[in-house]
């Protein structure tokens, strides 16, 4: 699974993207975040306030309960500040 990170989420994780083999049982964005946080303190730091970090599956905004089945690219990033 390809994961990409932006802005301070990218800085906290310490990379712009990575490809990870996800273990069985990770069905949703929330599952994925929980698993990432168990992987190391950089992820714990990035997701320390889970409610703030936004996610997109294949370029579409999604909620934590969204399924990641069949996803090609999952993105995590802070609230948007464009415009």
């Amino acid at each position, binding site marked *: 699974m390809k994961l990409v990170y932006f802005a301070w989420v990218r800085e906290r994780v310490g990379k712009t993207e990575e490809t990870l083999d996800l273990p069985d049982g990770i069905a949703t964005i929330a599952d994925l975040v929980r698993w990432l946080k168990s992987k190391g303190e950089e992820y714990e730091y990035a997701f320390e306030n889970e409610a703030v970090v936004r996610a*997109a599956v294949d*370029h579409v905004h999604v909620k934590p309960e969204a399924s990641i089945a069949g996803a090609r690219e999952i993105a995590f990033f*802070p609230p*948007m*500040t*464009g*415009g």
Partner: protein
Amino acid sequence: MATIRIQAEPFDPAAETAVLTGGRGDVGATVAFTGFCRDEGGRLSALELEHYPGMAEAEIARIAGEAQARWSLSGLTVIHRHGLIRPGEPIVLVLAASAHRRAAFEAAEFMMDYLKTRAPFWKREHLKDGTAGAWVEAKESDDAATERWG
């Protein structure tokens, strides 16, 4: 179809307007919104705009499609810059054309409210002393502005 561009280069609102109005007798109104980089009381040397390539275009196209479904528009152009942008330089252009003024005003304001809260761009401050400052925090007032469109 809306015209959507994500680019590092500046843009030319007059040329973009001419594309939407040239040779047409059915356009009664254009509203051009331009967002500029402010210096925040002289504190900033620049804003750095990071974006999510691919999703930025897709998300703006989605928002533009919604605007075109809600209002009768003869044209809609959105240009959003990324990279380092100095105070006084333009960051974003939203240009809406319609037979009638109300549709052009509302569509442009709708686009801006959604761009602020839904388009995957992030601003970081660069300070006058040469250091990279903080990421700009999202504002609740921007979320509220988006929510009023229902």
